[in-house]
């Protein structure tokens, strides 16, 4: 037991300024979240309500255990695109009858809940999370199908939705569809591929082809109810396992289905009776400098995230720019890797590779706290083999089999993003703080590199190089890269699972770890690539 100590001075002007800046960013993100919550806007929400229907979020709230937490995933999906923030679907992890489930609800107030390319991307990510963590899936269905003008981006990859459902079932992770409204054409396979199907009387409509299409195809006269009504499916086709009297009843039935799954988590149980951190999470707002060039001590973060602020640091004297050590979060043991001075040198890389292997030896998940500008460059470092060393770390993180959870606190640049388990390295979860930025390199550096290259090219061609143009080009590039490094932009691209309030880090990681433990938690049995020594 080694309790961390904190040297944060919450009365310092710097702290207050950092906090102010973080609160501003949080307010911006709240405003974006509010857009997702607003769904299709007042008019469509009103129309939906007038039909006596619950909003997608109300359905979820009613489905969840009372007073239990809910982690919404990718809430800013489609941010910065032509589509509504949130991508007309809500996905998240919540507790139903004591079971953590991956819940997905189409938002019928946004274009009738039709899928656009971002909807599919967001759903794919949710399906990945369900599959990797063995989370039962509950789909709350009411969707007009594909947004037809964008079918080229949806139709072919979209088939994955049905594949994922049946693979989930094959892996003995149950899938439940609660059908509140339309689920037609391709959408009909959503209940079709689910283990359990509940349909709401007089509301659910599930068929391959509606009356007009049937008329065109065979000349048969028909109606919605006989082709795909809930009563028909419950009594005649057998596609519906349960006929719900109304929406509340469908949710009640959904809950009773989960209750009867006799679900057992496969991962080890958390240590009970753990202590809360000794330091106030509120301080996290003032710890990250608004200027990412200024490093901060990640132990201050660890002290506010892990149980009892109890952190046993590994190799504290070696490679000090990366902090490694053992702790618990909500009773779950974790190994922590946290950037301390931004830059990763050879020592840090070797330390990380060793630490990751140790975590695999003892089946312990890893939490990676990003604030890195990347691996060190320069003659000395190249000659001492920084590429080999970086490769060691990337090899270790790539082939590590324990679950990884990445949190982008500040910078996450260059190959450092990879070594710290960036999105491409399949962390089970990746969250960003509002202060995070991620790109191949910092905007100024990138603009500067472009400037140097352009200047050299001009010199080669014997041309003059306009300093004015250069300044304008640099400013433009810098602005563009800056914008594209921002967390909202990256979140919109589904490059993270959500931007979180730093004060919620412990809660989010605890919930994620608990979700992860629905599946087995096992480290690699050997199986790393060749480590270049």
């Amino acid at each position: 037991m080694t309790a961390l100590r904190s040297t944060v001075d919450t009365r310092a002007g710097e702290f207050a300024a950092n906090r102010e800046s973080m609160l501003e960013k949080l307010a911006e993100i709240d405003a974006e979240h509010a857009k997702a919550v607003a769904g299709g806007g007042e008019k469509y929400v009103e129309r939906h309500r007038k039909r006596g229907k619950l909003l997608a979020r109300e359905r979820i709230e009613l489905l969840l255990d009372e007073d239990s937490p809910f982690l919404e995933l990718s809430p800013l999906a489609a941010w910065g695109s032509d589509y509504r923030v949130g991508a007309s679907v809500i996905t998240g992890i919540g507790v139903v009858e004591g079971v953590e489930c991956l819940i997905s609800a189409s938002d019928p107030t946004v274009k009738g809940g039709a899928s656009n390319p971002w909807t599919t991307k967001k759903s794919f990510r949710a399906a990945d999370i369900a599959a990797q963590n063995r989370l039962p899936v509950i789909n709350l269905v009411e969707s007009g199908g594909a947004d037809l003008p964008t079918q080229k981006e949806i139709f072919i990859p979209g088939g994955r939705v049905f594949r994922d459902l049946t693979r989930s079932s094959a892996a003995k992770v149950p899938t439940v569809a609660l059908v509140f409204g339309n689920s037609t054409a391709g959408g009909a396979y959503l209940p079709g591929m689910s283990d359990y199907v509940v349909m709401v009387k007089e509301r659910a409509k599930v068929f391959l082809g509606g009356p007009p299409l049937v008329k065109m195809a065979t000349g048969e006269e028909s109606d919605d109810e006989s082709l795909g009504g809930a009563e028909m499916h419950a009594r005649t086709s057998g596609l519906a396992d349960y006929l719900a009297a109304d929406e509340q009843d469908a949710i009640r039935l959904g809950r009773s289905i989960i209750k009867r799954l006799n679900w057992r988590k496969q991962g080890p149980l958390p240590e009970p009776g753990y202590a809360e951190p000794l330091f106030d999470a509120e301080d996290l707002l003032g710890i990250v400098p608004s200027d990412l060039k200024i490093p901060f001590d990640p132990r201050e973060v660890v002290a506010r995230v892990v149980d009892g602020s109890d952190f046993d640091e590994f190799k504290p004297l070696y490679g000090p720019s990366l902090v490694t050590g053992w702790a618990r979060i909500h009773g779950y043991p974790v190994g922590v890797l946290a950037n301390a001075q931004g830059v990763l040198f050879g020592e840090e890389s070797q330390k990380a590779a060793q630490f990751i292997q140790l975590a695999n030896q003892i089946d312990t998940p890893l939490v990676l706290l990003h604030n890195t500008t990347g691996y060190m460059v320069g003659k000395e470092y190249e000659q001492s083999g920084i590429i080999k060393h970086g490769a060691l770390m990337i090899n270790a993180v790539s082939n590590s089999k324990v679950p990884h959870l990445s949190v982008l606190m500040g910078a996450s640049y260059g190959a450092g993003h990879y070594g710290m388990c960036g999105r491409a390295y399949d962390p089970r979860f990746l969250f960003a703080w509002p202060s995070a930025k991620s790109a191949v390199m910092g905007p100024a550096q990138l603009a500067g590199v472009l400037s140097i290259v352009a200047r050299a090219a001009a010199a080669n061609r014997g041309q003059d190089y306009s300093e004015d143009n250069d300044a304008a080009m640099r400013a433009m590039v810098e602005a563009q890269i800056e914008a594209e490094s921002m967390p909202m932009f990256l979140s919109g691209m589904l490059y993270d699972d959500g931007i979180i309030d730093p004060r919620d880090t412990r809660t989010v990681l605890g919930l994620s770890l608990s979700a992860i433990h629905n599946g087995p938690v096992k480290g690699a049995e050997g199986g790393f690539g060749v480590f270049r020594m």
Partner: protein
Amino acid sequence: MRNLLVANRGEIARRVFRSCRDAGIGTVAVFSDADARAPHTAEADVAVRLPGNAPGETYLRGELIVKAAADAGADAVHPGYGFLSENAAFAQSVVDAGLTWVGPPPEAIATMGSKVESKRLMAEAGVPVLAELDPAGVTEADLPLLVKASAGGGGRGMRVVRKLGELAEAIEGARAEAGSAFGDPTVFCERYLETGRHIEVQVLADRHGTVWAVGERECSIQRRHQKVVEEAPSPFVDPAMRAELFEAARKATQAIDYVGAGTVEFLAGPDGRFYFLEMNTRLQVEHPVTENVTGLDLVALQLSIAEGAKLPPEPPAAQGHAIEVRLYAETVTVQDGVADWQPQSGTLHTFEVPGVDREFTPGAGLRLDSGVESGSVVGVHYDPMLAKVIAWAPTRDEASRRLASALAGAKIHGVVTNRDLLVNVLRHEAFLAGETDTAFFDRHGLATLAKPLATADAERLSALAAALADAAGNRAGARTLGRLPSGWRNVRSAGQRKEFSRGDTRYEVVYALTRDGLRAEGYEGVELVSAEPGRVVLDVSGVRRAFTVARHGSESFVDSVLGPVTFAVAPRFADPAAALAAGSLVAPMPGTVVRLAVAAGAVVAAGDPLLWLEAMKMEHRIAAPADGVVTELPVEVGSQVEVGTILAVVGEAVLGESV
């Protein structure tokens, strides 16, 4: 006397056992099946089962009780009150079995058992009585008058007649009730004193000729002729009147060669003149108030007298003031000025009276004589009185304040009681001024007197407390993620929602527990200080208020100084299969269907009687809520029903369609 059997149940059995234990006398209980786990059964040295439940099968079976005494090796029998306590034949059978009968001689019981006869005797002895009226000769001038059963007591077989035309029906009704309750349909008529005061004198007589008038009690506050609040001394009685009362009581006692503890009841008019009503040849329910002002242990004295002991010449003088209330498991609703008292049953999850100084023992402070305890099941077979709470203090004001506070702060969960009514009475100006008479409830209005202690605002805050306690309970009981913040959201769209109701009032509590504290719609200025499953502390505009919350099934019990509130917790989901058909009439209380007025298919108008339910010897009419057709009638005469059982369904009548 070595081993005493109490032929009774509930608090009085426990009361007698306490005195027995103090005297080193062994205790024997008898118990019906429903009382197998009752406190009186558990705490006796030995207990003998009386198979069955109805009093007629159990506590009224004299021969079984005498056999029980023999089986258990008892050498004495104490009858308590009610049941066989005033049954001369039973007393005789106890004596005949060679057992000591802790009570008056059987002849005295028999004499006083007939009210007609006893009135005659008393008049002869010079005790003032109200003249008996011959129904045939009654005129307008005699009204109002009272029709009374000659046998028994407790208000059964009693009717007040205010119009001559109602007399015949009242006599008939009283006869029927008396016949079924006491096996003797004899009734008589006398003048009815509208604003009389019920004043009674406790007497004790030994076998050596000493007769004590121990003290008077006033028991004017009654419902349906059953006492609710009793006190000693009477605020109405001055020393001169007291001397007269005592004198009359002694005369009455001596006239029938009475031995043991008894009570001579009088009705006093506003002018201070009083008339003999009856003599109760047993220990009274309200004996503790006399004990508390005199320091006497009346049960111990009963035992001594039965053993032949001699009383000192004079009883001790009364000191201070004692007030007793009877806590009944019952509700009262007032409709069209008519009070409807309904007994309640159920599991008493919690029964805690704060600050109890003593139980079953005379003395200062707060005394509790209870037949129930937390976890007791209150059934439908016996009197709905759960307990008596008694306060003694140097003055009447202090005693009523102490008693009111104790009752208001009592945790009584699971069974509805008359607690609120009792507290309101004890705090009522007229009560505090000593203006108590038999018309107290009518004069001050039961609707007002029985109104809940918790105001609408208190109820609203209690609903919030109930919701937050429930939330804390949900978190504490969560199998997964139990220690994450309650209702945590990274993207918040709506708060948590819980719905409670009390009567017709619904409370929808929508709240979120955020980083910045409680946010609850409509509760601005309320902050959450702490929430645990059983206790919630709120800061209400700068005032900290603690609420204790207990959840049992679908009920939430919230107690605070603002007054107790019981909420029905609305289920989150309604099971459509469990929904009642529209127009369903459910049993408002447990009971037996005694008569049907209609058959299925009958066309009825709103207010038409459909059937009658009997509970606690009272018939309750179940009437059609609206015009329509009786579509279902799933009960028959004799059906035993629980609260909530569907008795009938009245559907809409379709014009022109035969049903």
